[in-house]
């Protein structure tokens, strides 16, 4: 609890410092409505994916297939939109709700597939999802032969790229809704408590009568749905879909989640931290683009630096505790694989 708060405050601090720095150095170029609106429209696509990864990491797993899932979904929906596009280049009213619904279904089932690999076949998540990610991308390539799916009605992109009251980008709203939903799930519902427990110790979870398999299935399904929605946002932002969009997001999501204070070995982490991490990274990148002379490569240097820095800070404030998590009784070994 309190320990996470520490972490949160550090992230907030970083954000504030960076905003100050931008205010001093590049005020006019950074502090403009349009700029913030742009950022707000940019981060949802990978932000939503990160939320999924976070859920998996809370259960002690990881999801490296988010980008594959996103692209597979957006390509399929791209095809569908092509069909629905009428001669006048418009879309029937039901089209957009329909594609979102289907996207959720597809994302869910792709996630389910991951869940099965993890729960029923006991494949380490990092490998299961990496394999399935490759597989999904492969299916994209096979379907499109590598070409982009585009030329479908602009209505879709227009709708999503719109701004509510000419102010809030729709993408941001989708993100907020999803974030709120997941926040509710993990902090207010029984499911949340259970996945934290599962992430802490699978064996104890079993002995406590939790339905482990279904928990994994649900978690990876959720992650799949998040990824799918990310895909739908990309479909709008780029008005097209292609097998290799957003390939950089895979590691970026993991980076965000751990920076957000989620413990890769499970059982710990909060959505607030992850959201802050998402915002921080976007601010850093956009901010850096305000400095023409600074190579954009420094962004990755800064990311890595920030990540390690925050972790080391945590070390210095929390290390006073124990040298090792001391087991104090026989058979407390990771041997307990059943």
């Amino acid at each position, binding site marked *: 609890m309190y320990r996470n708060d520490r972490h949160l405050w550090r992230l907030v601090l970083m954000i504030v410092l960076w905003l100050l720095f931008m205010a001093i150095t590049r005020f006019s170029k950074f502090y403009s409505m349009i700029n913030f609106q742009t950022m707000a429209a940019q981060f949802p696509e990978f932000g939503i994916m990160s939320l999924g990864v976070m859920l998996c990491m809370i259960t002690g797993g990881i999801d490296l297939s988010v980008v594959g899932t996103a692209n597979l979904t957006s390509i399929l929906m791209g095809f569908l939109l092509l069909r629905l596009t009428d001669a006048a280049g418009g879309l029937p009213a039901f089209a957009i709700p329909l594609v979102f619904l289907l996207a959720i279904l597809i994302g869910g089932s792709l996630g389910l597939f991951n869940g099965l690999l993890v729960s029923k076949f006991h494949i380490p998540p990092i490998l299961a999802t990496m394999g399935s990610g490759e597989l999904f991308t492969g299916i994209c390539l096979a379907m499109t032969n590598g070409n982009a799916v585009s030329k479908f009605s602009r209505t879709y992109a227009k709708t999503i790229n719109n701004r509510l009251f000419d102010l809030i980008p729709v993408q941001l709203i989708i993100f907020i809704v999803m974030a709120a939903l997941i926040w509710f799930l993990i902090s207010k519902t029984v499911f949340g408590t259970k996945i934290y427990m599962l992430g802490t110790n699978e064996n104890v979870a079993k002995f406590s009568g939790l339905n482990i398999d279904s928990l994994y299935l649900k978690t990876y399904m959720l992650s799949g749905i998040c990824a799918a929605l990310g895909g739908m946002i990309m479909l709008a932002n780029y008005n097209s879909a292609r097998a290799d969009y957003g390939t950089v997001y895979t590691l970026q999501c993991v980076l965000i989640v751990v920076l957000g204070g989620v413990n890769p070995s499970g059982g710990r982490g909060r959505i607030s931290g992850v959201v802050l991490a998402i915002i921080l990274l976007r601010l850093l990148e956009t901010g850096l683009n305000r400095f023409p002379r600074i190579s954009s490569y420094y962004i990755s*240097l800064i990311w890595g630096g920030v990540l390690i820095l925050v972790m080391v800070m945590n070390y210095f404030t929390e290390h006073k505790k124990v040298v090792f998590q001391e087991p104090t009784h026989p058979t407390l070994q990771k041997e307990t694989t059943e």
Partner: protein
Amino acid sequence: MDTTRTLLKKLSRRNEPYIFLVLLALCLLIEFRSGQFFSSNNLVDIASALIVPGLFAIGTFLVIISGGIDVSFPALASLSMYATTKYLLDINYQGGVWAAILMALVIGALLGAFNGLFIGYFKLPALIVTLGSSSVFKGIMQGALNSKQLTIIPSGMRNWGTSAIFTARNPVSGLTSRMPVAFIAFVIVLLFVFFILKYTMFGRGIYAIGGSEVSAHRAGFNVVRTKVVMYIMVGMIASLAGVIRACMMQQAHPTNMLGMEMNIIAGVVLGGTAITGGRGTLLGCMLGTLLIVIVENSMILLGIPTSYRSVFTGAMIIIGTGISAYQVMHMNKTHSKRTKSKEAA
């Protein structure tokens, strides 16, 4: 009788036999589809294609055995390879390759120490640290050194990269393939690490830490030092791989090693190394890596259409790791049975 039983027992514990069978099946399939697999020069090609992934796999194996995970080695290798090559070009170095290798090893050791410091001393999760450090390494290389592809590399490196132990000639097609001298380096490292793991306390310490860090600490292993030294070793091995790759490719490309990490890890785990650490054998690790390498370099021989390659690799990884995961479970079961029945007796 008794000896055979213990032998069987030992085998049932291993999953090398299983991977080996999969490997064999795959080779036969390729041979059957192309008639080329077992041709002398193809085998040599596979061998030389194994060098760089093989070296990476050795490093990754060490890390996983110790209970960690490393996603930074491609960035690490790229950085030290690139820095070395660029420097030698700048001073327009004309000597042999050894300088390059030495320099890369030194840089690699430093970068490895960086990982080791945070993982070993600060006890941060390896995944987090290596994620961070790989970004940092990339940033240094592309930002500070503002890297670009170097298509001209020092003559020493170039010559070494193209010099061959022997050249295999396919009597039928007349095609020839070089067995690079670099392969020797690979074999040396492999033997070296095998020796370390099996015949030094440091090596057994890596297994011990992977099994139970607390116990290792109490038994008197210097956990921190062991980890730091190990990550330094891993950094050096990765850097060596980087230089070798530059030499063999006749060019230093800053980014095209990035992204290899996942396939390498997959290979190692395919080889029966437990991702939770402590368990696995170098032999299995090599078999697993070989499997990945062969798959990646036989798509055309297999005649798999370009647009279906990822499907194939993806399926390969899932099935492969699935099998070894199942194998481990199965192993544990049979194990407990064995001992239990022993007690009852």
